């Protein structure tokens, strides 16, 4: 046992902590530094799904039915797999239309129907009250167990006078807490960042607390999971808990029903809708939440079965007390501290659910029930209504918790937590047909939805809600066994004689069947009206609409309005500052100069209506705006025409975009081509000036010698002969140069003639060495040849290859040191290529020149001691090698000789000019 003041103090301290987190979250949101703009926070905030029902009820369910607690969590796991499609669409629709509750969603979809929104609100409230009662019951039971050592049982506190009932005070405290959390100020988007932050923290706390108890039971009281399960298997009474009980004919159907029910609840419980849709900051967060939230569910369920079995093994109480095992096991084994932690976890779970549910329901009741009544005769005179709106919401929160308390007093004692929760689940599952249908089917109508929801809800009340009250003894139970009016076919749990199903599956089957059937059937009865059609298009095709925000996209409105009237309306419901901001934003979106210049057109009307929808709900906003403007009703043809225009506009803008993109592409291509041309032009100029320069040198000397001989007719014959010899040598050099320039030009222009033959590389190398042997001998250099015995033939032009090889060898001959030169020729082959390298022991090529030697007229070495040569040998060689699909490279460390080499593929299919160029550009100078 734990002393009462300690429990109360710890609980309050914890609530204050949550409040501090919420306060911080709100403050950061106002400063624009949101702390919830994070996919993990989003996923954790979904943890509000796990309430006291999960925390206490799962263990109870596991203790009595074994694995049957699991479908409630498998359903959401499966549901989250659809979140990327379904939830993202819900979020987008809600954002575009400023939808703030599930009632608003359904009401707006079916032609902004107030009646429909009110019906949905009614179902939500009636369905949720038992759920709130469940939370109160859990806290009350836990508190009683912790402070007095025994749980509420039988009469419990129900027998005591109501003003001495601690549960009532718990309810009131939680109401105050919720008011402080969710209705401190009115926000047009109904976003509560602080609340989301607090719920995320709350989710972590309850998970950790539950895991702590689980670990304590598993390893503190037993020797691990294996120990618990082995002992449980040995007990005949516990063994059934480890199987499905599949021998029952309807077990499969029941499992399916539970899974389906929880899948639907994940999306349609008001608190889940609030957290997942309304409070979502960024659609992309859904991606992470789609697996992170199921992981959360898995973690919080891991220890449910061990705790249930452990509790049953340790205590004699049996399954009846199992719902409090989380508290009673630590208490009974002398760990009151852990029990307090567990209680805080449970309090956390219950508080989180109540806060979010109450905020969500208060928004619905205020917007869709109270405001329509309040404003039945138009907005009326009078000033700012924001205060009234807040007041209404606060009143609704208190009322909801008191209703929950009432249900707890009436029916709470008779039912297990899980059963109460499932009743609520079945109620909100009724939202599935109109909501899912409304998002994917344009044919659903208001009448169909009213009929479906009405019938589904009525059947839910009759087959599930009333029996639960009757079983608690607050109603004569006669109709249960004999049927309404004594007609056996109307027995609520065996309607039309359908028997064998458990009451939940039975109720779900009938209510969803009637709901979906009437929804589709009545919708098909009559074509949708103009407004239904326009809303259907906006909802179903939400992803095909351009910008969410209201200025773009089709506008289904026609009539006359005054900006002043709309401004006054906005001020009444949003306050002066918010209305000013709203009109400023519209002016900015339209690009007009200030608020005064705004024209009251259809788009302004729609813009204001959407903003109001955030504050008072879509249906009421529509009614309010309609009361200050003169609207001409649209007929179906108008809607179709507007849609056509919008889609034409969209097609035009699409075509324009496409056109401008292709223009941009063409411009870029032209720019590239121009740049390339310019660089080619510059290269040509460089080439021309180099060629003329190279031609001038021999010409100059020829002219000089010729002039000498002309000027001096008496020159002796030997001298004249020597001069003539020099002239001939210079002329030869000139010829060689011209030939090479021509050769180069031919190759570059693609006019060179290539012979194709099988080349014997060994013979080629031998020929080249023999041809240059004399030159090397003159330089006193030694030539070594290193090649394999057998080399397969290579497909290329033998003359051109010889030209390359001769060029490399004569280069080497020029650079080796006189007297002790050494040149090594290496031929190597592998499966794909053959390579030939010519290595010398000359001075090598300086690093800065290595890039240049393959360019035209860039001879290596200093200009002053340049050896003889035209500077075209290597560039020509490189182009020949590239022509045959090979690469040419230079490896050289200055001072340690140079090694020129090339490789060739055995067989080369002539590539296009383009890829030859590409290869040339990417050629590596030194593949070391």
């Amino acid at each position, binding site marked *: 046992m734990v002393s009462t003041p300690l429990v109360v103090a710890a609980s309050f301290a914890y609530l204050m902590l949550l409040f501090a987190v919420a306060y911080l979250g709100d403050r950061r949101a106002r400063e624009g530094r949101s702390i919830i703009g994070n996919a993990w926070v989003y996923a954790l905030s979904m943890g509000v799904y796990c309430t006291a029902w999960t925390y206490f009820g799962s263990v109870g369910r596991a203790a009595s039915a074994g*694995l049957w607690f*699991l479908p409630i969590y*498998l359903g959401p*796991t*499966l549901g*989250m*797999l*659809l979140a*990327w*499609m379904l939830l993202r669409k819900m979020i987008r629709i809600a954002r575009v239309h400023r939808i703030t509750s599930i009632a608003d969603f359904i009401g707006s979809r079916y032609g902004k129907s107030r009646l429909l929104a009110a019906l949905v609100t009614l179902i939500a409230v009636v369905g949720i009250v038992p759920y709130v009662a469940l939370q109160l019951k859990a806290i009350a039971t836990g508190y009683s167990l912790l402070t007095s050592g025994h749980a509420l049982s039988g009469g419990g506190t129900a027998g005591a006078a109501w003003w001495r009932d601690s549960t009532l005070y718990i309810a009131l405290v939680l109401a105050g807490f919720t008011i402080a959390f969710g209705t401190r100020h009115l926000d047009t988007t109904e976003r509560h960042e602080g609340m989301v932050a607090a719920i995320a923290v709350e989710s972590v706390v309850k998970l950790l607390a539950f895991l702590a108890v689980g670990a304590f039971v598993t390893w503190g009281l037993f020797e691990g*999971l*294996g*120990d618990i*399960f*082995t002992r449980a*298997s040995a007990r005949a009474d516990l*063994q059934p808990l*480890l*199987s*499905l009980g*599949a021998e029952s004919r309807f*077990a*499969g159907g029941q*499992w*399916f029903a539970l*899974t389906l029910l929880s899948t639907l609840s994940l999306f349609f419980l008001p608190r889940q809708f609030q957290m997942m849709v309304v409070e979502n900051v960024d659609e992309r967060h859904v*991606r*992470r939440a*789609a*697996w*992170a939230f*199921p*992981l959360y569910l*898995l973690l919080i369920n*891991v220890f449910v*079965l061990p705790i249930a079995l452990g509790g049953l093994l340790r205590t004699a109480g049996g399954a009846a007390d199992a719902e409090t095992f989380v508290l009673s096991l630590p208490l009974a084994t002398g760990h009151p501290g852990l029990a307090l932690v567990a209680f805080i976890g449970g309090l956390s779970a219950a508080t989180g659910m109540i806060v979010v549910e109450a905020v969500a329901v208060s928004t619905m009741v205020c917007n869709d029930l109270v405001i329509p009544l309040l404003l039945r005769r138009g907005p009326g005179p009078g000033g700012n209504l924001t205060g009234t709106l807040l007041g209404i919401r606060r009143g609704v929160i208190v009322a909801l918790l008191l209703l929950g308390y009432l249900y707890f007093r009436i029916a709470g004692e008779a039912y297990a937590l899980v059963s109460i929760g499932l009743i609520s689940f079945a109620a909100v599952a009724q939202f599935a047909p109109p909501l899912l249908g409304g998002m994917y089917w344009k044919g659903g109508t208001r009448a169909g939805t009213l009929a479906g929801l009405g019938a589904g809800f009525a059947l839910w009340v009759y087959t599930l809600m009333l029996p639960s009250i009757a079983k608690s003894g607050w109603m004569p139970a006669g109709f249960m066994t004999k049927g309404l009016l004594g007609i056996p076919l109307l027995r609520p749990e065996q309607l039309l004689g359908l028997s064998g199903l458990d009451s939940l599956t039975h109720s779900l089957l009938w209510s969803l069947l009637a709901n979906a059937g009437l929804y589709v059937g009545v919708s098909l009865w009559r074509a949708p009206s103009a407004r239904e059609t326009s809303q259907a298009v906006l909802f179903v095709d939400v992803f095909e609409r351009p910008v969410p925000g209201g200025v773009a996209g089709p506008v289904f409105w026609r009539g006359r309005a005054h900006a002043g009237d709309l401004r006054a309306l906005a001020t009444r419901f949003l306050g002066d500052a918010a209305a000013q901001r709203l009109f400023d934003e519209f002016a900015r979106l339209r690009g007009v100069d200030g608020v005064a210049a705004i024209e009251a057109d259809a788009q302004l009307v729609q813009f204001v209506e959407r903003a109001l929808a955030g504050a008072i709900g879509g249906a009421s906003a529509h009614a309010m705006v309609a009361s200050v403007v003169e609207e001409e009703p649209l007929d179906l043809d108008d809607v179709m025409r507007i849609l056509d225009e919008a889609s034409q506009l969209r097609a035009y803008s699409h075509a324009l975009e496409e056109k401008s993109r292709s223009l941009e592409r063409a411009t870029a291509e032209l720019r590239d081509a121009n740049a390339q041309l310019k660089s080619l032009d510059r290269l040509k100029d460089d080439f021309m000036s180099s060629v003329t320069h190279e031609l001038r040198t021999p010409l100059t000397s020829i002219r000089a010698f010729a002039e000498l001989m002309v000027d001096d007719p008496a020159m002796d014959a030997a001298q004249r002969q020597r001069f003539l010899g020099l002239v001939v040598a210079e002329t030869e050099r000139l010829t060689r140069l011209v030939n090479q320039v021509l050769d180069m030009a031919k190759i570059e222009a693609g006019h060179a003639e290539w012979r194709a033959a099988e080349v014997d590389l060994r013979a080629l190398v031998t020929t080249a060495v023999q041809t240059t042997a004399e030159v090397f001998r003159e330089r006193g250099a030694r030539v070594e040849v290193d090649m394999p015995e057998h080399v397969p033939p290579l497909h290329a032009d033998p003359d051109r290859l010889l030209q390359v090889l001769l060029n490399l060898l004569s280069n080497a001959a020029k650079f080796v040191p006189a007297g002790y030169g050494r040149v090594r020729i290496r031929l190597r082959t592998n499966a794909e290529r053959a390579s030939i390298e010519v290595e010398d022991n000359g001075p090598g090529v300086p690093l800065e020149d290595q890039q240049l030697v393959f360019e035209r007229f860039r001879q290596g070495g200093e200009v002053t001691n340049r050896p003889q040569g035209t500077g075209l040998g290597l560039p020509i060689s490189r182009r020949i090698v590239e022509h045959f699909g090979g690469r040419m490279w230079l490896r050289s460390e200055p001072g340690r000789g140079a090694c020129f080499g090339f490789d060739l593929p055995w067989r080369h299919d002539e590539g296009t000019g383009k890829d030859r160029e590409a290869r040339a550009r990417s050629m590596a100078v030194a593949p070391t």
Partner: protein
Amino acid sequence: MRSQRLRSQRLLALFALGWLLLDFPLLTLWDRQVLVAGLPLLPLALFAGWAALIGAAAWICEADDEPD
């Protein structure tokens, strides 16, 4: 957009697989009185299947957007 459509389809397929795996009648395959590593088969199979589903979902959701 194309990669988003692919992701949607993968998740839809996983959803179908999940229903098959975690529902009757395939679920009864595990419903035997057998201990695996000291743990009963049915809960083990349920939790393992569940975890595998989450793992696959994480893989699909966290995969980078492929270029269109």
